[in-house]
């Protein structure tokens, strides 16, 4: 009889190292680089370094040393941001992708905390956490074997364990976001989180402030529907806890991926809140199968 440890080892190997296609890995590389570039170039992080020292006076020295961020270094930060953009372009195009992934991951670790650093020592939920984890994983895999312009191009292996695990890593990371979001609601608030009154109160809170918002009426309307609010709470919890099932069931992805998009659209319309890790849902798509289908259709059309 196999020991528990052996079974665990077997499961671990199968989960991470099942042979996979180079195209899915390349798609993950492109999604990661494009998302990181989109977020990075939609902010002006170096400018925060140039703020007067009074703004920086409450930033602990440990936070500054942790990220190697110091006030008054705007020119240096601009240089580092340019390097990060260059490295991410390398990742996107597949030029020296592994080196570029590693450099970009280190630079994002340094740059991302600039956004909230004046009051918070962690830039979580600001769009660069998932790219950082993904880039570090991609730096250890042959992510430039296809869909790349690299002049050191190598012919891709048919299926290899080397292509699968980084995609798995991103999928697991994304699942952890949803799982721990649900878990923390359960631990911090309890079952009362999903009650109609709690949902209604938050709908009102997000729509009563003085700041002008793009969507106001949907949230106020929903706040006046207690039964619907109750269902919104329960459905949110089910989706967040259920998201992890996509790691094992490709069939469930057909249901859960659209449901997740609807979930976030609903949050945007009723609370004016967005999340920037949404593009990473694309790593749950089987791009290899999609590519084959397109090629087969093209071949059939040519034969006809």
């Amino acid at each position, binding site marked *: 009889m196999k020991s528990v440890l052996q079974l665990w080892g077997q499961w*671990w190997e199968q989960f*991470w*190292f099942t042979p996979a296609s180079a195209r899915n890995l390349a798609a993950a590389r492109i999604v990661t680089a494009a998302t990181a570039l*989109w977020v990075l*170039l*939609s*902010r*002006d*992080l170096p400018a925060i370094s140039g703020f007067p*020292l*009074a*703004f920086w*006076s*409450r930033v*602990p020295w*440990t*936070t500054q040393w*942790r990220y190697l961020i110091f006030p008054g270094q705007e020119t240096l930060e601009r240089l580092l941001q340019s390097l990060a953009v260059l490295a991410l372009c390398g990742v996107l195009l597949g030029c020296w992708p592994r080196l570029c992934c590693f450099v970009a991951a280190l630079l994002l*670790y340094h740059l991302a*905390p600039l*956004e909230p650093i*004046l*009051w*918070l*020592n*962690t830039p*979580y*939920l*600001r*769009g660069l*956490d998932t790219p950082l984890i993904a880039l*570090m*994983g991609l*730096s*250890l895999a042959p992510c430039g074997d296809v869909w790349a312009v690299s002049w050191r191009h190598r012919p891709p292996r048919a299926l290899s364990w080397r292509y699968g695990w980084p995609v798995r890593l991103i999928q*697991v990371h994304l699942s*952890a*976001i949803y*799982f*721990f*979001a649900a*878990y*923390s*609601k359960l631990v*911090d*608030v309890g079952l009362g*989180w999903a009650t109609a*009154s*709690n949902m209604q109160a*938050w709908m*009102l809170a997000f729509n*009563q*402030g003085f700041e*002008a*918002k*793009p969507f106001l009426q949907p949230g106020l309307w929903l706040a006046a529907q207690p039964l619907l609010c109750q269902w919104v709470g329960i459905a949110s919890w089910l989706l967040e806890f259920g998201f992890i099932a996509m790691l094992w069931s490709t069939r469930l992805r057909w249901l859960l991926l659209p449901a997740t998009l609807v979930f976030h659209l609903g949050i945007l319309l009723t609370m*004016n*809140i*967005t999340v*920037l890790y949404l593009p990473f849902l694309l790593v749950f798509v089987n791009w290899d199968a999609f590519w084959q289908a397109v090629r087969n259709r093209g071949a059939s059309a040519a034969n006809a």
Partner: protein
Amino acid sequence: MNHHSAPGEWLTSIMKSDLVSALLFVGWVVIAARAAWQDRQGRQCRRGIRLFLAYTMLASLAAGVSHREFWPFSRWQIFAYRYQAPIQALQVRAVDAWGREHDVDRRVWEPLSSLDLHTWMLHHLSALSSEQQEVVGQSLLQMVNAARARVVANQHLGVFDRFFGPLYAPLHVVHSPIWRSAADVPPTAFTGLHIYLDRWDVWERFRNPAHIQRTLVYAYRLP
């Protein structure tokens, strides 16, 4: 970070979290670099990857289960709150030469988001020395007046959309622009700022929108 604890306690907890997180990150990078090196040498590559994956999983699980931030390993404590009155929100209002108050377009604060700026002010503004508060007031008023001048000159406001236009990566909390043309701002420069703390109960305000407790927490006036 819990800003409601005593200041010394709060600072110690941040410093501890910084130290542990930094060590975790350095360990992660070293393990990744070692795996890459082993792969390059063509030996024990899978072993290095296994260690990298195990480390990443353990760090992520530790952050999630313990509810502690070890960024880039996060706890993902998203919206895990029970509503408790009162809601608190800061509001910055610009004062014109006639003493009238005006709401400020959120793009004025870019590269900061209004959420970051307001939260920073809520937690730290009162702890600054009067000279530091003066510098902050002056800087913010300069930002407001520079933005007003751009709107009057029919120029673009904000920096976040400079590359991607309306398709730029949105902030966590989305706002609408309110300074769209010269008619939305006063004809002369602002002369001061009023920073208010608003508190309200959502249910009371639902019944009566005017049911808000407003306190002036800081006022800046051009010398």
